[in-house]
C-alpha cells in the first residue's frame, strides 16, 4: 500500500502572554510526533484533554505552521514554513473540533459547500448543485436546509455540515478532530459508515481524533495514544485494545463508561493531574501519576520502542505486563 502522509518529529510551541509586564511563557504543546499513514487507512489519536491532539491536527494540515519537523505527502516533502497552497488544501482537509467557529456565519450552507467546487473544479452550476444535494443527503441533512445560515442549526447538524464541506473535494487525507461526538448514535453510525464507504471507494486516509474509544475500536486500523505532547503507545488497533501496555493507556481504557445499566467497569483511578508545561516533570512525563514509577523512570524521557507488536514509551512495560498476567 502507498504512503500518503508521513509526519517526522513534529513540534509546536506556543508563546502565551500573561499580561503586560510579565515575561511571555512558552508552551510546548507538541513534542516530537512521528507516524506514517497509508492510503485507505485510519489512524486514531487518543489521549487526555490538553495532550496536544488538536495541535497535532492543526500542524498536519498546516493551519498552523509547526515550529519544527517534517511533513511528507504522497512521498513528497511539504514546505511546512508556509501556508498550504490550493493543491495541498484540496488533498488534505480538516474537520475542526469546534464546527461553529469554523463555519462562516454570513454564508448559507449552499454557498459554503459549493465554494470549493467553484474554485477547484469545472463543474457546471447544475452539477455543483447536484453534488451539494447529494452530500447533504449523505450526511443526513434535509435538502431544503441548504438555504440556511450556520446559526440556524443544532450542534450535531453543524458538525455534519463541517464534515460535508471537508469531503466535497474528495481529498486524500482528512484530519477529523472529534467529528462524531456531537451526533446521536444513529446519525453517528451513518457518518462512520459514510467515512468507511469513501475509504473503500476512494482510498481516503483518516487521522481520527476521538475521546470515544468504542468508536475508535470500531474504525481505527492504528491507534496512537498521546500524553503531554508525545506518543506513549502506538500499535494496530487489535493489539492495543487486547493488550494495552503503557500504564497510561491502561488507565485511559479502563475509564470508559459502559452503556449498560448497573454495570460499572473497574476503574484505575488516575492520581493527580496532567503535568504543567511550565514545570515539566523530570524523566517520564507520566511519572508523577504512574502507579509503577521507580527511581529509574525519573532519569530520562522514555522513547518509543518495539514491544510485542507495539511501540511503547515505558521503561518498565515488560515487568508490568508480566505481573498483570499472573
Amino acid at each position, binding site marked *: 500500500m502507498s504512503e500518503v502522509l508521513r509526519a517526522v518529529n513534529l513540534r509546536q510551541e506556543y508563546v502565551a502572554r500573561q499580561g503586560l509586564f510579565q515575561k511571555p511563557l512558552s508552551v510546548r504543546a507538541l513534542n516530537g510526533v512521528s507516524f506514517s499513514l497509508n492510503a485507505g487507512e485510519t489512524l486514531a489519536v*487518543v489521549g487526555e484533554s490538553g495532550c496536544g491532539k488538536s495541535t497535532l491536527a492543526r500542524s498536519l494540515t498546516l493551519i498552523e505552521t509547526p515550529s519544527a519537523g517534517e511533513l511528507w505527502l504522497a512521498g513528497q516533502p511539504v514546505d511546512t514554513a508556509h501556508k498550504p497552497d490550493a493543491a495541498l488544501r484540496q488533498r488534505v482537509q480538516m474537520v475542526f473540533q469546534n464546527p461553529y467557529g469554523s463555519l462562516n456565519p454570513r454564508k448559507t450552507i449552499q454557498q459554503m459547500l459549493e465554494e470549493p467546487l467553484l474554485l477547484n473544479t469545472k463543474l457546471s452550476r447544475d452539477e455543483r448543485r447536484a453534488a451539494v444535494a447529494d452530500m447533504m443527503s449523505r450526511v443526513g441533512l434535509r435538502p431544503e436546509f441548504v438555504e440556511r445560515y450556520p446559526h440556524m442549526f443544532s450542534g450535531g447538524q453543524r458538525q455534519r455540515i463541517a464534515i460535508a464541506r471537508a469531503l466535497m473535494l474528495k481529498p486524500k487525507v482528512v484530519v477529523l478532530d472529534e467529528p462524531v*461526538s456531537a451526533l446521536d448514535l444513529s446519525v*453517528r453510525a451513518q457518518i462512520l459508515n459514510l467515512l468507511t464507504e469513501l475509504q473503500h471507494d476512494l482510498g481516503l486516509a483518516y487521522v481520527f481524533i476521538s475521546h470515544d474509544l468504542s468508536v475508535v475500536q470500531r474504525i481505527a486500523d492504528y491507534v496512537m495514544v498521546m500524553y503531554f505532547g508525545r506518543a506513549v503507545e502506538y500499535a494496530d488497533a487489535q493489539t492495543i485494545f487486547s493488550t494495552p501496555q503503557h500504564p497510561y493507556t491502561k488507565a485511559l481504557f479502563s475509564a470508559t463508561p*459502559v452503556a449498560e445499566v448497573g454495570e460499572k467497569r473497574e476503574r484505575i483511578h488516575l492520581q493527580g493531574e496532567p503535568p504543567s508545561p511550565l514545570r515539566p516533570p523530570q524523566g517520564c512525563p507520566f511519572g508523577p501519576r504512574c502507579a509503577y514509577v521507580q527511581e529509574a523512570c525519573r532519569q530520562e524521557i522514555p522513547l518509543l520502542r518495539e514491544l510485542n507488536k507495539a511501540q511503547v514509551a515505558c521503561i518498565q512495560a515488560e515487568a508490568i505486563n508480566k505481573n498483570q498476567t499472573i
Partner: protein
Amino acid sequence: MSLLSVRNLSVAFPTQNGWFQAVEGIHLAVNAGDILAIVGESGSGKSVAMMAVMNLLPPTARITCDELKIDGQDLLAMPAKQRRKLNGGTIAMIFQEPMSSLNPCFTVGYQIDEAIRIHLGGSKKERLERALHLLEIVGIPDPQRRYKAYPHQMSGGMSQRAMIAMALAANPKLLIADEPTTALDVTVQAQILELLLKLQQTQGMGLILITHDMGVVAETAQQVVVQYAGQQVEKQPVFGLFNHPHHPYTAALLDALPERAPAGDFLPTIQGIVPGQKDRPTGCLFSPRCTHAQVLCHEQQPALVRQPEQWLRCHYPLNPVEVAQ
C-alpha cells in the same frame, strides 16, 4: 416541590420555507436531587427547548407554553429582566459549544469572576479563591495559569471545563448540562460526572443532562426522555429504557451503539431522514422510517400517553409484556 415544571412547551422558527416546528408540546418535571437525561436525534429540539426555558432564544422564535415554573416562581408571569436574573443563579446552563459560548475577548478568570460577582458577591479576594477552587474541582490543571488564559489558548476540553466552572459559580439549584462532557477524555469525564453527582447528592441540585453518550446516561441518569423531531416519544427509568425500550425509535437508537452492533464494516443505522416542513407525515412522525409501522401509523398521530412511571408515543409499543410486570 418541583424545581422545574414545564407543560406543553412548543417552539417554532421562521424560515424561508415557513415556520419550522423545532419543539412540539414537551413536558418536564424535575425535583431537587433528580437527574433527568434527555437523549435523541440530532436536531430534535433538545437544546432549543432548554434555551426556551432559559429565555435565550432569538426574538424571532415563536414560543408557546402552558406552564413554566422554576423553584415555585411562575416565569410566564415574570418580566424578562427579572427572568434573566435567575439565570446563572437559581438555574444555570452548560452550553453545548463551549468555545463559542465563552467570550473570546476576556480571560477565563474574568468571566468566572463576573458570574460569582453578580450572583454571590464577595470581596475580590474571596471571589478569586472561589474561582480558583472552581477551576480546580472541574479538573483544570494549573488553575492559576488558566485563570489568566484566553479561551483560544485552551484546548477544547479545557474550555468545556471552564464553562462548567462558570455554570457552577453560584451554586445553582437546577443545572442544565447540554453535552457537558463531549469534548472530554474519559478520565476527566468520569471526574466531572462524579462532581455533578456529588452536588446533586449533597446540595440536592437538580440536573438535566442532555447527551448522546449512552454510557454517561447509563451511569448517571435516573429517568430518561427520548426526543424525535421535536417531540418526546418515550420516558422511562434508566434501567427499563436500556433493557426494554418501548418506542421503535429508542430501540433503533440503541441498536446503533457500537458495542452492541454486530461486527463488520458498517453499523446499523435508521433508514431515511427526519421529516421536514414539506413532507411532515399526517401520522406518526417516525412512521416513514419505522420498521414496525402499520396502516394506523400512517393515518393517525399517536398521542403522548403519560403514566407516572413511563411516557410513550406509539401505537404499537415494543416489549409490552415487561411493562405490565
